[in-house]
């Protein structure tokens, strides 16, 4: 339990560092994303073996993402008027703007028709 807490404190430390650096140097990147990049560098420096315990705890945090999403996600109730007003436009944009990049990615990464099929 104490070990787990020290791992969470490590990850939260990078979260704080990312936010502090982004604000202090006005970096146009959300603090958590900068924090993630710093944490990635930390993992690479620490190496496979030494980073194993903190990675195990971090994976538990990731598994619980559906829990962490609830406060932000439930905010949809405060914006139901937006959905009522622009619902079909939003669905249209999502469908078309998802289909085009998906097919492009398949095409670029696939290159040719797969000979095995």
């Amino acid at each position: 339990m104490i070990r787990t807490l020290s791992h969470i404190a490590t990850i939260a430390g990078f979260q704080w560092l990312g936010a502090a650096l982004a604000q202090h140097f006005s970096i146009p990147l959300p603090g958590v994303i900068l924090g993630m990049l710093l944490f990635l560098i930390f993992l690479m420096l620490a190496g496979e073996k030494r980073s194993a315990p903190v990675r195990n705890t971090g994976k538990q945090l990731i598994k619980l993402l559906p829990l962490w999403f609830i406060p932000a996600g439930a905010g949809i109730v405060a914006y139901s008027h937006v959905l009522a007003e622009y619902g079909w436009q939003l669905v249209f944009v999502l469908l078309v703007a998802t289909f085009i990049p998906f097919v492009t990615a398949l095409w670029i990464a696939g290159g040719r028709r797969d000979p095995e099929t």
Partner: protein
Amino acid sequence: MTPLEAILATLLCFLAAHGLYRVSGHQPWLQPVITGILFMVIVLLATDTNYWSYFDSAQAIHTLLGTATVALAIPLYECRHLIRQHIGPIFRTLLATGILAIVTAIVLAQWLGLPDNLAITLAPKSVTTPFAIALTESFGGIPPLSAALVIVTGMIVALAGPGIARLAGISNPLPLGLAMGMTGHGIATARAFELSSEAGAFSALAMGLMGIYTSLLLPWILPLFGLH
């Protein structure tokens, strides 16, 4: 709403969502990401609680969303060998798909006359939800709406993606995984893992790279369209 009530209600909604998912035999449309939020919405409406009063009291849980987002470096770190092996196709695909996913969303939104804050909210729809929430927060979009749009995008890719790939005659896990992860983030990645563990690993990697790439692109692309 007191912090205790907010945290208790959130935990119960999560546990109920998780339980339902297990009892249903892991039905994709009953994913806890969706049902957990849905249950919380029902609780707020049923108890006539103001959303912002709940959100203020649930700050502790919302803060841990950021911590879990930082932890997303872990899966990225663990599939670094895939980057080394397939660096060419991965970065070619990322370069084009990342720009296209953002630009098509903004162009269509503006063409349909959607207000700026909705265009900004739509721009990062293909990245994983915590990234999208962080990005819409910092660029002036609507974070909770972003969560909903991102989840729907992921479901579109998870449901239609494998069929489109089959029609295109592509079964190789590299293009399939990259396309699913770059456009449909975690929800499509879960689906890709069901198809094959290789496609799933590529999808997980693609989702992480797409999140970073989109975060770096948005501050440059949004001003080009008069946003932000």
